């Protein structure tokens, strides 16, 4: 599945008016000379003189080299390091998918079960949802990478006018080695992920997702609606992309069933059988292999086999990492759908 960043880049790729803009070198040199005639702020120098930058850089470089060779040994290198590859989440234990009639039947059976579920969403005016996820794009900066996987948990409340609240924080970290975990525990389990945040958004600030109560449940009409995305994805990829925005929301049984039927009718999905998701919940996995997003990838979506509700989705790079600092195969993103419903206030949970 494409990330929001991938989609935005895809929409605007090739339309950058400044693509070919380069510096006028003499002008650049003159400007530098003018800047350096001033002193840097005295305050800046005073504070830093006992810890010169060259020394910090040497320490970081040494630590990075040590990390690359012997693994993680100390916390300052755990959170962000200069290692050449990002530590990514462990792969799920998936069976080899089967395609064709077997996959289509499994999805249709699931759709039928979803449609038979009682409607327990409620009728509150606020849409609540809770997810936990890890996204490579949010982890990697231009020069630093992370050596521990720290998922982000996010709860969101959205009112009909698009105003709302988002409560976010770091989830439980995953360490690639027992030694790195022990070191973290020995140091008193200091926080590793992004700081907790509680952001409030005014009217329109959280608008944008489709109103699920207005989506048609007739598969053909629903497909037309989902395909209006402006992206140039085709086939099941565009469905997965559009449905990815819906799975976190509270969906009524008829719509849940219709979304599954669309995937079944695409004929492109693979069925990988029973699996447990990253939250330990039992489900059944479906896959889509595609390279419409620039690199060959496998999208995996896991549904609750009793209710047809989506439990999680994730993307695995399968053959070529491109410029991404990861091994092959690697998980590049995952989202767990942990709960949703309709409530009456910004502090309520279903």
């Amino acid at each position, binding site marked *: 599945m494409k990330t*929001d*960043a991938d*989609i*935005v880049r895809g*929409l*605007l790729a*090739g*339309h*950058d*008016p*400044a*693509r070919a*803009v*380069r*510096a*006028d070198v003499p*002008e*650049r040199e003159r*400007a*530098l000379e*003018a*800047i*350096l*005639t*001033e*002193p*840097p*702020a005295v305050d*800046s*120098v005073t504070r*830093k*003189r006992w810890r*010169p*930058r*060259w020394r*910090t*850089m040497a320490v970081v470089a040494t630590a990075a080299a040590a990390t690359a060779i012997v693994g993680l040994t100390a916390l300052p290198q755990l959170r962000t390091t200069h290692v050449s590859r990002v530590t990514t989440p462990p792969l799920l234990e998936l069976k080899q998918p089967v395609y064709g009639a077997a996959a289509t039947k499994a999805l249709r059976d699931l759709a039928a079960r979803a449609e038979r579920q009682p409607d327990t969403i409620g009728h509150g005016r606020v849409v609540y949802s809770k997810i936990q996820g890890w996204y490579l*794009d*949010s*982890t*990697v*900066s*231009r*020069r*630093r990478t992370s050596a521990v996987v720290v998922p*982000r948990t996010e709860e969101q409340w959205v009112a009909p006018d698009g105003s709302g609240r*988002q409560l*976010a924080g770091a989830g439980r970290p995953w360490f690639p080695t027992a030694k790195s975990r022990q070191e973290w525990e020995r140091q008193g389990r200091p926080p590793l992920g*992004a*700081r907790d*945040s509680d*952001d409030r*958004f005014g009217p329109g*600030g*959280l*608008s*944008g997702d489709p109103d699920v109560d207005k989506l048609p449940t007739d598969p053909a009409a629903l497909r037309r609606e989902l395909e*209006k995305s*402006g992206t140039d994805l085709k086939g099941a990829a565009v469905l997965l992309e559009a449905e990815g*925005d819906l799975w976190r929301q509270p969906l009524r049984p008829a719509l849940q069933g219709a979304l599954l039927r669309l995937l079944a009718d695409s004929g492109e999905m693979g069925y990988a059988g029973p699996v447990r998701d990253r939250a330990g919940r039992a489900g059944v996995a479906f896959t889509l292999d595609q390279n419409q997003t620039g690199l060959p990838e496998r999208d995996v979506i896991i549904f609750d086999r009793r209710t047809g509700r989506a439990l999680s989705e994730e993307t695995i790079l399968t053959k070529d990492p491109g410029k991404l600092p990861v091994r092959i195969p690697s998980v590049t993103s995952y989202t767990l759908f942990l709960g949703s419903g309709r409530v009456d206030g910004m502090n309520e949970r279903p």
Partner: protein
Amino acid sequence: MHAWAATQTQCGQTRWAVYMTADRQWFVDIYERHYDAVLRYAWRRVGPDDAADVVAETFTIAWRRLRDVPEDMPLPWLYGVARNLIANRRRKDRRRGVPDAFDAGVYLVEPDHAEALGRRDAALAALHDLSDDDREIVRLIAWEGLTTAETAVVLGCSAAAATVRLHRARRRIEKLMSAKLEEVAS
């Protein structure tokens, strides 16, 4: 003699001198490495006539506030400074009644195919119709090539807020672009 060198002489300490030299070298490295990127950032927002001025002001501030420039992510920090400078310029221009007239689209080379031209026009029109905040985050991701973590640095918000802002902006530009493409088709 440079003012910073005079300070160095008055202090007369070796450690101080080493520090000053390392700092200066670090700044020059950043300047040379990121000048073009900051120039393009400014160019996209204010056009060719004013872009170099914005870049010079940005790096002047970076030199004055060297302590604040993050070692690991100097570029998003520089974009943040340039962003504030451009916003200040716009505020002044608006007070003086100067319209915000720069249209980056006129500098684009025409694509060869009608379909590509349609998509390009739809993309630029959709971008134009976004709110200022949405447009900024979309450009930072698509054209400045930042990750969402870096975008949060530019916008001065939490990574969580940047993620949700990007998601919403993405939904809105998709919707706008879809409508523009339908207009073209009909």
